[in-house]
């Protein structure tokens, strides 16, 4: 059997270096569900996220009558993997995929789906579920809420002056993935700078041929001029004026998820096209365009790779770094790869290349800091 053979092969390859308590399981494909599998593997090997999800599962599994949702399905799946007796093998994420198709009709068909869209939907859905649970918990004993308000008070006033009552809940999903961008606009007439903060769970970057993540991030923070028919209404001038706008990362997240905009809408073709550009993503990334001058340093731990030349078909696989080994997850199959192999997923410098395996979503973890 394939599954037994793969498992043993990987086990053999790792030998006595097989990490204590770690499980490497492939995920069965239910017909074009590789977008889901590849993202789930990346999330499973996002250790702080996995640990907190399992902790949540531990705290909530006793509540027997709890309704099934994406969060419980995901927690179930992760706990199933981590509690396997075998070290390797294949698991069918059946309940999770069924639930996903139930929740969102986008993912219901057997068509090729966008992995980034799925990740974004999943994270937002998890946040929604946690917020609802927290509201429900708060709802019954009303007296306890003021104390919690105070606990989070200062953050609130800093982030938003008019945020009166609706304190946004900071869930453990937020603690892992949420960062804050600040949108600075300078009126060119009175030169007053207004800053507006917005949160993000991942950064979507425009890409260029033969570039790097660092240069893409630089472009992301570059200055844009609001002019002509698109002037800025300056409150100080009480009128429309030219303005310069730029985005800065105010609070870098603990887990930085970078989505490379490889699927670009081409107006002349009136369809999306895949950009196979070579975009170098380093194993260690320094984030310098932050508001505070202190650089944040990150290390790469997972890559979701899109395989194929077009946006509407192809395949997703993922590269994952676990205990200093790089692993290659392709649905049911799990293999060990060399760290140097990661660079084969940067993209191609020529437009038509036989290599169609391109890094699409990058997962970086901040090092030297605990969330």
């Amino acid at each position: 059997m394939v599954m037994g053979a793969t498992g043993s092969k990987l086990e053999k390859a790792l030998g006595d270096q097989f990490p204590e308590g770690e499980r490497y399981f492939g995920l069965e494909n239910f017909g074009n569900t590789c977008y889901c599998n590849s993202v789930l593997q990346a999330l499973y090997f996002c250790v702080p996220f996995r640990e907190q999800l399992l902790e949540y599962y531990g705290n909530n599994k006793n509540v027997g009558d709890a309704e099934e949702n994406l969060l419980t399905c995901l927690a179930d799946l992760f706990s199933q993997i981590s509690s396997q007796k075998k070290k390797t093998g294949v698991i069918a994420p059946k309940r999770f995929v069924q639930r996903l198709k139930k929740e969102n009709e986008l993912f219901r068909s057997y068509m090729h789906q966008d992995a980034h869209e799925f990740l974004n939907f999943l994270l937002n859905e998890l946040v929604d579920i946690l917020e609802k649970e927290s509201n429900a918990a708060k709802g019954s004993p009303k007296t306890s809420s003021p104390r919690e308000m105070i606990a989070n008070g200062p953050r609130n006033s800093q982030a938003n002056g008019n945020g009166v009552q609706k304190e946004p809940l900071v869930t453990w999903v937020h603690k892992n993935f949420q960062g804050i961008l600040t949108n600075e606009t300078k009126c060119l007439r009175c030169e007053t700078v207004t800053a507006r903060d917005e949160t993000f769970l991942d950064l979507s970057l425009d890409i260029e041929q033969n570039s790097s993540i660092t240069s893409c991030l630089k472009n992301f923070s570059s200055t844009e001029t609001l002019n002509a028919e698109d002037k800025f209404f300056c409150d100080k001038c009480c009128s429309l004026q030219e303005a310069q706008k730029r985005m800065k990362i105010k609070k870098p997240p603990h887990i930085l998820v970078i989505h490379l905009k490889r699927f670009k809408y081409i107006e002349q073709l009136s369809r999306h096209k895949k950009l196979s550009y070579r975009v170098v993503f380093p194993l260690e990334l320094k984030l310098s365009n932050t508001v505070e001058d202190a650089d944040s340093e990150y290390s790469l731990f997972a890559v979701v790779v899109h395989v194929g030349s077009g946006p509407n078909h192809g395949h997703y696989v993922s590269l994952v770094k676990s205990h200093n080994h790089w692993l290659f997850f392709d649905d049911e199959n799990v293999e060990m790869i060399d760290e140097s192999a990661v660079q084969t997923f940067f993209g191609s410098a020529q437009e038509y290349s036989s290599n169609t395996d391109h890094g699409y979503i990058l997962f970086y973890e901040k090092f030297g800091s605990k969330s």
Partner: protein
Amino acid sequence: MHRVGSAGNASNSTRPRKEKRFTYVLNDADDTKHCAGVNCLAVLKSQSSDGDDYLFTGSRDGTLKRWALGDDSVSCSATFESHIDWVNDVVLAGDTLVSCSSDTTVKTWNCLSDGTCTRTLHQHSDYVLCLSAADKNSNIVASGGLGGEVFIWDIEAALTPVAKSVDSMEEDSSNGMIASANPGLPITSLRSIGSNSNISLHTSQTHGYSPIAAKGHKESVYALAMNESGSLLVSGGTEKVLRVWDARTGAKNMKLRGHTDNIRALLLDPTGRFCLSGSSDSMIRLWDLGQQRCVHSYAVHTDSVWALASTPTFSHVYSGGRDLSLYLTDLATRESLLLCTKEHPILQMALQDDNIWIATTDSSVHRWQAEGHNPQKVFERGGSFLAGNLSFTRARASLEGSTPVPVYKEPSLTIPGIPGIVQHKILNNRRHVLTKDTAGFVKLWEITRGIVVEDYGKVSFEEKKEELFEMVSVPAWCTMDTRLGCLSVHLESPQCFSAEMYATDFNISGASEEVKINLAQETLRGLLTHWMAKRRQRSGSRLSVNGDVPSSKDVSIRTHTHSRIEVDDGAENHNAMVHPSFEFSTDSPPSIITEGSHGGPWRKKITDLDGTEDEKDFPWWCLDCVLNGRMPLRENTKCSFYLQPCEGSNAQVLTQGKLSAPRILRINKVVNYVIEKIVLDKVPVDGSNSEHTFVSGVAAGQSQLSTLGDGSFRSGLKSWQKLKPSIEILCNNQVLSPEMSLATVRAYIWKKPEDLVLNYRVMQHN
């Protein structure tokens, strides 16, 4: 939010244009003061030794003013009103005053006249920010602005009237030029709507004057300077480079780098060899154009440098900017001195002998001592520092606490201004507007009369707003902004005609209960009453009110194609007296602003309208309303609702269908309707009474949507008054006050998008 930039954007003709907008500006009673920041200044030295000097100021309030300067006194001697947005810069070219504005135009005026605009130069397509004149060649003026547009004008040639156009209509002489520059004119005139054959006549006027364009700017130009002969032009802006041009041909000479941010101020020495620049990078730089390099950089300011002025010999420079400070710097020794600090950022300066006039974002203008003829004298008083050449040196020095003490504490002369309005809130009745000005005063305006009805003094704007909250719902018939420091009210058709009120609410004596007043129509009549009177006087017997005025004929052509025109019930009286509640003050007459036709946009006080204004400059819907009493059909003046007995009430069911009534219908009328229906229920309906047609309509089952008119209850009430039961109307289980309108109930009690449901119940008699 409206877009100022597009208002005068004549070159953009490919896009379908919306209906023109009509705007009026509520002026303060004091006509001799600016009511917004002063962007620019120019001094006119008297030709004779005993004559007065004059100061010209251009303001964000859209006007320019001329001030006669005595030794220690100053008086406003003229207001130049025609720009419809901020006046950004002003220069004198001989006797011609040239101004530029965010309304995208450059305008010329006879500087000693009473304030009539002599020409509108409509070449720019975005804000015009800066001007520069050649001191020894009074014909040459350059204008620059957003989008990198720079033009060099021969003012005399531009002012020469263009030969009469092919079109025999009374087109004023300012038309030809624009047509030549912008072949694609927006076709918005009344005649063009009526007849397509006229369009070609307008656009075929291609003769006339065109300025020289200095082409090649990649970004917006914020500063210009010219040498005295007008041969050399320097420009600066967000590209951060200094560009030098041959002003006679528009050819590029060179590009100089050095600044790290927007260039906001430029000066050239008379010969054109040296150039001074002030930048948002807080530096002042001295350039030798002969050597094509920067020879000095002066770190004097701690923030952006926005204004520069030099002594006549170009030995010293006065500089001001965002850090509120005015410095004097010796260009050779690099010694610098803080002359004074202001309360507002400095926008421009002008030297007058030994004095300097300073314009800031405040509406007042101050004169300070400056010793322009002998700047060394100020330095002898000590307190100077040496300007560094790196931008952070001053910032660091001020952080360390070594802030210099200003030489002068008080200005020697002040031209006071009026605090400008900076905040406004349209109240729910849509006639009152609460405002707050730069001095913190909170006032209540009645915009349909253009007056302040209440001055609350320095109170909290937010609290006053809460206090004045009224539970009424009136459609938003106008929009407003305060960019001119005063209230500008914008009307757009057809939405401006959506608000109505009962005449009785204005205490109009003798008015019957049903007479409705359209806010926009009455406001327009109030604003244009002077114009209509003058127009009637001028035309005399030639034109009758509804007669053969070309425009009104075309309006009627227009109305034929426009099938949904509703003739107002007061159409035959449309030139009747203006309602007292819409009479605008003649002491502080508001100004009207029109987008104009091809003469460009303009602004005039309503009392200064003399009837000669080109009718094409007014929006057609506005003329149609005031001249012909016609308004476009308004859809949202009606409100549909169901009238049902309260749950558990034994009141009979009156009607199953949906009713429709004016939004402003009061609940007491609904009460009357219910009473009438209950009492008259068994009484046969008097078929001859047209007021009751809705009853038969429902009875015959022809229409589910019957109309509940205001006139429905006029008759038959008295006879059964004594039998009258007490009726309560409820909505969402809340008893409604009889004074509430249907719209108010819908907005504040029903609060749902579905049709309103009203319930009624009979009260027990005692």
